[in-house]
């Protein structure tokens, strides 16, 4: 039977990190949706079917916490696992991330192999 590719929404405004994640995850066979702002991300969440969301915290228009909070309270994709990738290394940001509903937290700079393992842990292979 034809198996549909797992789809990941990556929300990141840093061009370099977005490019790296796109390259690394595409090579693993995942289907990617890319958003550079909170606004774009929320519109994609309401329109598309998504298996995993990877989001930064410092984003234009709506920060990562707001995005997760709104996703959890929305009608579509509200059970999707969310991984935060952030440069904020303080305990408060990590705790707040989990409190608003994130499933994992990766601190920048990211290790590509660690990212792949954490993605696989949440949604399995592509």
């Amino acid at each position: 039977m034809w198996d549909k590719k797992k789809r990941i929404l990556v929300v990141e405004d840093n061009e370099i990190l977005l490019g790296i994640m796109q390259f690394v995850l595409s090579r693993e066979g995942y289907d990617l949706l890319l958003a550079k702002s909170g606004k774009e991300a929320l519109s994609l969440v309401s329109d598309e079917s998504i298996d995993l969301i990877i989001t930064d915290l410092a984003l234009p228009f709506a920060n990562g916490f707001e995005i997760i909070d709104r996703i959890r309270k929305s009608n579509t994709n509200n059970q999707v696992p969310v991984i935060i990738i952030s440069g904020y290394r303080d305990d408060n940001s990590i705790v707040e991330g989990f409190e608003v509903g994130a499933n994992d937290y990766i601190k920048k700079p990211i290790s590509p192999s660690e990212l792949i393992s954490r993605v696989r842990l949440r949604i399995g292979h592509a």
Partner: protein
Amino acid sequence: MLSTLGYIIHDIRAFFEGNGWPVFVIVALVLSVFFWTACLIGIAFFYYRDYRYRRAYSRIYPALRDFIYEYILVENRTSHFPVDKLGLDLDNKLVSKVVRHILHDFIFTIGGEKGQSMRHLFNELGFDKESQYEIRHSATNIVTTVRSLANLALMKVSIQDTILDRLQKSPQAEIRVAASKYLLQVEGEQAFDKVFDGLYGISQLHALDIFQTVVQGNYYGDYAFSQWLEVSKSFAVNSLFMDLMVYYQELNEAQLWTLITADKESKTALKAINSLGKLLAKDSEERLQALYTEESSLAAKLEILKALGRVGQGKSIDFLNGLFMDANLPLSLRKHAYRSLVAQKPYSSALLRKIEEQVDGEERKLVRSINHPMVHYI
């Protein structure tokens, strides 16, 4: 006397009404043209430099990105990169600058083993040698030296001790701070003694910079930062150690009291009082009360009241209540006295209930304002 004044007025009138006026206008016009031309040339030069940088960036970025993807992310190379394939003229200053910036961004983004490979690539492109050369030969050029030290710290490249010692003893505070940051980033807590021993003549911004470097180094130990507090040191230096004490919760009341008693009116003393509060130095509660009566400056009294609110274990409740009830005191002192009472709950709970029942007029407004949740929120 009057005639002299009359001549002067006559001369000035003659200048503006006669031949002097056109000359004055011409000179002003010429200067104005020069000024605006210089401004326009400056702006045009700035935009041209920015345009050249962006053009070079847009040309180099895709090539360098693909190179990194191919050799570091796909082939998993850790060294011996075929840098010739990049075809970049690194002797060109602009190209070198752009490549360095792009690599910095990648190094800040990629961590783990791949991050280490990125550092090797940076070194293989010759930037470590360039930075080493720059710190050896242009130690008096602040910008170059600071940038080179930052690069070497990012790459974790070691620098000869003799060069580092020279940089740490540089007459320029910026270079000394950059050398300290380098040591903290590369050697971590092993460099604490070396860095803190040589700190002098730094500004508060430098102190903040060093504080952030220590904190970002993920150090979680029990190092005694208080050993470096000294009355003879500047406010910025002592302030740095007090901030580190507070961040790592290292309580050393004796050292802080030494700073306070040395010069009660100084900024260092105010910071030390504040630090006592933040470190919850509960053994200092009575001593702080005594200090309040000795103090004359409002700023010091306010700091003492704030600290009492934090450290208070109920011994200063009557003292604070007395201050709050004293209608002759400035409002700010009474307000902080009451705030500190509120902070000392549950020791002060019974007294606060009594105050809320009894007060009226201005005191009632004050109490309601302090107790209002939005006031604390703001």
